[in-house]
């Protein structure tokens, strides 16, 4: 019953997402908050977040298969299914936000290999293929001996994949906040944090709602890892902005993000830094982190902070005007020289949430149909696994 209620609830959001897409597709992007200045909006925030998190959701499977930590082996299939589901949700939002989403077949048949987008098309497809094979080796005993090979391949692939996602922005010369190789490793570490946070929440929810026992040993071990990832994400963010602050030409955009950007600045300090990094670190590294509830709170804060980070990274970079004539005041009918404002529309929000719902519904379906979770992961079972 619980399963069907949850399924129905999520299906409702999938329906809203589909209706939003239909509305946007029928009328064009004129019904969105996006314009010729903010060309990538809220759907991209959700899509990139989900794609990045998908890569990170594979963490636990990688630790089990690649680094041979037996304790995590029972959780590896869930990790792989969640990774596939998040990738599916993210990609759907991405392609349904295309100006011509009906031309998806063109994107699948016409390639420009100089484009990072083209490489990402292959990286995403490869991810589905490799993680799919990996999942097969975990679920079918006749091919179980290939699990380590498949797991290693998937592990390397997802590192390349997130490098590709970061490079979607890193390879852009036009915008000040982009055009740096820093974005590739930064996206990898962000993916570790977001993916693991989502995994922990899904894991705890799956066990709680199906009445199975999940011991503290697993959760407490993983929350330490989560703290390391969040600290690393914070480190990358600090180094990134410090480097920018050192360059006079970057002062304008940095002042915008860090001080004068209004909503963007608020999202950066309160969303990305405080909610997404500082508070979760305080929870995870202190005694609070021994409680399951607090760990879950930290995970949800990391996810919210992640969405804020994507918003700042994607919208913030576009909101600041391009500096075509450094030092001069620009004025035109095309908003040159002005800060660009963006108010997301309802359909954009629901398209993004639809992607999240698709990811969760696919995970739910996977857990239910594939019976991915062991009956019990109490501390005694886990201790046995380790020896």
């Amino acid at each position: 019953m619980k399963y069907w209620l949850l399924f129905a609830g999520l299906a409702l959001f999938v329906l809203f997402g589909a209706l939003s897409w239909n509305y946007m597709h029928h009328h064009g992007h004129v019904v969105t908050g996006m314009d010729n200045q903010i060309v990538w909006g809220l759907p991209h925030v959700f899509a990139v977040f989900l794609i990045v998190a998908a890569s990170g959701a594979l963490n636990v499977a990688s630790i089990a298969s690649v680094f041979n930590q037996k304790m995590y082996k029972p959780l590896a299939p869930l990790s792989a299914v969640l990774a596939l589901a998040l990738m599916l949700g993210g990609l759907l939002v991405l392609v349904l936000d295309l100006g011509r989403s009906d031309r998806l077949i063109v994107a699948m048949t016409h390639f420009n290999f100089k484009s990072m987008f083209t490489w990402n098309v292959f990286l995403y497809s490869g991810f589905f293929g490799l993680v799919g094979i990996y999942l097969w080796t975990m679920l079918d005993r006749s091919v179980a001996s290939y699990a380590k090979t498949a797991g290693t391949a998937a592990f390397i692939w997802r590192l390349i994949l997130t490098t590709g996602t970061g490079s979607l922005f890193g390879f852009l010369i036009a915008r000040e906040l982009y055009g740096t190789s820093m974005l590739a490793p930064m996206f990898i570490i962000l993916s570790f944090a977001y993916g693991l946070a989502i995994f922990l929440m899904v894991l705890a929810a799956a066990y709680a709602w199906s009445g199975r026992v999940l011991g503290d040993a697993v959760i407490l071990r993983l929350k330490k890892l989560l703290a390391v990832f969040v600290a690393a994400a914070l480190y990358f963010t600090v180094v990134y902005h410090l480097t920018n602050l050192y360059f006079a030409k970057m002062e304008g955009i940095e002042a915008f993000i860090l001080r004068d950007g209004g909503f963007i600045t608020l999202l950066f300090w309160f969303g990305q830094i405080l909610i997404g990094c500082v508070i979760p670190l305080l929870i995870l590294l202190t005694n609070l982190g021994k409680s399951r509830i607090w760990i879950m709170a930290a995970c949800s804060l990391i996810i919210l902070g992640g969405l804020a980070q994507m918003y700042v990274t994607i919208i913030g970079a576009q909101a600041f005007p391009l500096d075509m004539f450094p030092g001069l005041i620009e004025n035109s009918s095309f908003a040159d020289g002005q800060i660009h404002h963006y108010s997301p529309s309802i359909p954009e929000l629901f398209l993004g949430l639809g992607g999240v719902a698709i990811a969760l519904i696919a995970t739910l379906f996977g857990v239910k149909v594939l019976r991915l979770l062991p009956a019990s992961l109490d501390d005694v079972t886990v201790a046995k696994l380790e020896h």
Partner: protein
Amino acid sequence: MSDTNKTVDVPASPDRRKFVGAATAFAGVTLAPGILLMEVAHGRPEEQAASSAVRWGMLVDATKCSTGCDDCVTACSTENGWTPVESSPHKSQAPQWIRKLELQDPLTQMETNLPMMCQHCADAPCVDVCPTGASFKRADGIVLVNRHTCIGCRYCMMACPYKARSLVHESLNDTQKPDVPRGIGCVESCTLCVQKIDRGDGTTACVEACTASGHNALMFGDMNDPESEISKRLRQLPTKQVRADLNLDLGVRYHGI
């Protein structure tokens, strides 16, 4: 005519003879001016590919560009069929292929006017990033969007340092021109009036308008031909490329910036 008749097995009827004669005359009258025009204007036949021997480009003399004049913008909009931003109901979402930019030095108060549009880079970032190859550079240096393979991903708009591109945000009304295909959900920008170039007009709508207004701030031509007017002028006049630091080798050069 009688000679022709002798060679034909079945003699043609007088009616048929008249018809053939009239048709030939009609065809001659119809085609001749066209062929003559082709000869005069050196238009490029359809089957002939654009040549890399040519590099179409533009010279903007910002010292002659007049404050408040937007004749180039109006001419572009009329030629290419996009709705002028002031008559568009959704201004921030309306496509603008060319726009007037007013610059001011905050210290010296010096004001500069210039039109900004696609700079037709030799190393165009929009062409590099386009996933489907819809964004492409023609051999003669014109950067275009293939309306049939553009999926509306807007990655080119993220990549363009000149904000030269617009997405068509809504269904288009019937102002479309037959030789300027446009469409909802696709990205578009200045084409250097490619339809006029291929027709052999040898200039663009904005340049024509600027010349007609007597400002003469714009000049169009083949930058590869050392004898072309634009090449001669570019040799005499100090010009700059906007964001020259990016080293994109622009097809539009500015004087007085």
